[in-house]
């Protein structure tokens, strides 16, 4: 470790240090609000480090370091910034909810921050061992968070998440070791060279098996079909802020590493896995949308919706061959990054609106939201807006995201995939709009207004405005995502 390595890792070190600080502070203070405040304001440190690194990467290009295990480039920094934004909104929006954790509020924030450390690291890793360590650093705190309420449902969610996460890790590791055995190295760059020299389709049977096993392991993290069994139960049982965090940040980090591994290490055999991901994409969105239609619990509904959205985002991954009219490729991955940003804002808005609306009733059933349009007009409007964005209707971020993803599919000669995606979006309107109908049309005996705290209102405003902004002005973020995915593509 040199001083330069420490500099490259500064955002992660700051995040982990902040987590430790939060736990210590929780020990010595009785004012629990202070702990959340420090956790939130402390995020400024990793944010500043990330921005400084962005400035340097902008001038000098990617910065590899730490024994070649990771590289700080725009792709990694994009995900660091997304994760930091998500963590900030999650901490802000949990302000009311954490009172249910009684004595353990500091630990809640610390676990969120430790998990975020893993996610920010994950996007920068270029070596299999480091990828595995970062992945576990991401998911172990999430399993603890899922079981945080320690009641029957929450512990059930934690157990299911942990066991299936460990199982997927085992599959992933077996895949990694097979690829390592073939290539003789765990560096993604070396693996790419070895696969290119292999000559055979997919390099060798070892790489084929390794690639499929790795896709399975990462597929678990992004809630892709057929590794989606854990999603509904964990989403329903986990504390709602944890569900919100899990649905956006964990998915973003999973896609980051999926893009890095498949675009960099297995670029030579891209046509083979492109077809694989196209099929999985269709299955994910269709299964997610069909099962979501029958749900009566709103958290479960959003769980199936997240499976469907994993399918939409996989369209961008499958569209590796997409080229823009000016000849540059990268439309697919850039669409993935944009959609992850848009989805983060949308889903956070939806989940925190649900937290605010269900805080009084304590039930997550859709029928419990009846008449909320009158009882909490602003929060209901945000929820309705977020659901419209999940369908993909303008002027929302979800519409722009889907537009770019399906556009990439068309440019990659996968028109059928774009058509399936659009049909699925139309079908999904049925169950999203059902929630909106309950909000505004159904009536409820109680007319009591539902009040929300300033912090939750702020979190809702930030994510809601994010959805609107990305829907009206997608340009700035698209410029960033297009610059970020350049590192994944072969130098022109």
């Amino acid at each position, binding site marked *: 470790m040199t001083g330069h390595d420490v500099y490259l890792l500064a955002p992660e070190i700051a995040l982990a240090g902040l987590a430790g600080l939060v736990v210590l502070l929780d020990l010595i203070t009785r004012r629990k609000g202070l702990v959340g405040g420090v956790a939130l304001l402390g995020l400024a440190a990793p944010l500043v480090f990330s921005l400084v690194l962005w400035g340097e990467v902008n001038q000098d290009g990617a910065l590899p370091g730490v024994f070649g295990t990771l590289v700080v480039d725009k792709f990694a920094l994009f995900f660091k910034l997304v994760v930091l934004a998500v963590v900030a909104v999650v901490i802000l929006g949990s302000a009311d909810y954490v009172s249910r954790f009684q004595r353990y509020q500091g630990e809640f924030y610390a676990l969120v921050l430790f998990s975020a450390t893993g996610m920010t690291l994950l996007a920068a890793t270029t070596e*299999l*061992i480091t990828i*595995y*360590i970062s992945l*576990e650093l991401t998911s*172990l705190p999430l*399993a*603890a968070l899922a*079981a945080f309420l*320690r*009641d*029957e*449902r929450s*512990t*059930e*969610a*934690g*157990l*299911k998440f*942990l*066991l299936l996460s*460990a*199982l997927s*890790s*085992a599959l992933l*590791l*077996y895949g*990694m*070791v*097979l690829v*390592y*055995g*073939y290539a*003789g*190295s*765990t560096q993604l760059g070396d693996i790419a060279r070895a696969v290119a020299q292999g000559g055979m389709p997919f390099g060798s049977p070892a790489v084929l098996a390794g690639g499929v096993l790795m896709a399975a392991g990462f597929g678990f993290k992004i809630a892709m079909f057929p590794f989606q069994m854990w999603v*509904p*139960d964990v989403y*329903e*049982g986990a504390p709602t802020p944890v569900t919100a965090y899990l649905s956006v940040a964990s998915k973003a980090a999973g896609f980051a590493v999926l893009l890095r591994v498949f675009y960099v290490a297995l670029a030579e055999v891209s046509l083979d896995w492109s077809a694989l991901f196209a099929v999985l994409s269709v299955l994910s969105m269709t299964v997610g949308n069909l099962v979501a239609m029958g749900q009566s619990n709103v958290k*479960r509904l959003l769980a199936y919706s997240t499976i469907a959205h994993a399918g939409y985002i996989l369209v961008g991954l499958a569209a590796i061959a997409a080229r823009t009219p000016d000849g540059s490729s990268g439309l697919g991955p850039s669409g993935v990054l944009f959609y992850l940003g848009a989805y983060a804002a949308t889903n956070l808005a939806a989940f925190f609106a649900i937290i605010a609306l269900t805080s009084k009733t304590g039930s997550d059933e859709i029928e419990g939201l009846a008449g909320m349009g009158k009882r909490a007009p602003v929060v209901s409007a945000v929820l309705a807006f977020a659901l419209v964005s999940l369908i993909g209707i303008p002027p929302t971020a979800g519409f722009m995201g889907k537009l770019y993803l399906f556009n990439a599919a068309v440019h990659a000669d996968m028109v059928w995939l774009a058509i399936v995606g659009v049909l699925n979006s139309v079908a999904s309107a049925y169950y999203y709009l059902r929630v909106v109908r309950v909000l505004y049309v159904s009536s409820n005996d109680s007319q009591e207004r539902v009040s929300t705290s300033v912090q939750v209102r702020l979190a809702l405003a930030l994510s809601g405005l994010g959805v609107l902004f990305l829907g009206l002005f997608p340009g700035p973020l698209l410029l960033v995502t297009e610059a970020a995915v350049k590192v994944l593509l072969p130098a022109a």
Partner: protein
Amino acid sequence: MSLQNFMLLSAVLFSVGLYGVLTRRNAIAVLMSIELMFSAVNVAAVAFSRYATPSALRVDPATVAEGAVQQVLTGQVFALFIITVAAAEAALGLAIIIAVYRSRGTVDVTQVNLMKR
């Protein structure tokens, strides 16, 4: 002993572990089966690091460049990291299993189905 023997051992261990995960009802036994799968991966990693790295390296380690030795050790380092993380995973797993036992008095995974419909 050839690489094939080790690969076979690894594949058998992995399959036995996977079978255990799918059939065992006790959550602790499921966790143990997953540990078995990790062990299978460790066997494969160490075997690869002994056999599959460039053959020249095995002749005389003293004459090879430093970077190459690092490459030979990668598989063994991989196994060490897997063992460490698996221990952390087991610790958290047992903690959650205790929490499950306290809230419902059983660790049978088929009984942990409150949300299944």
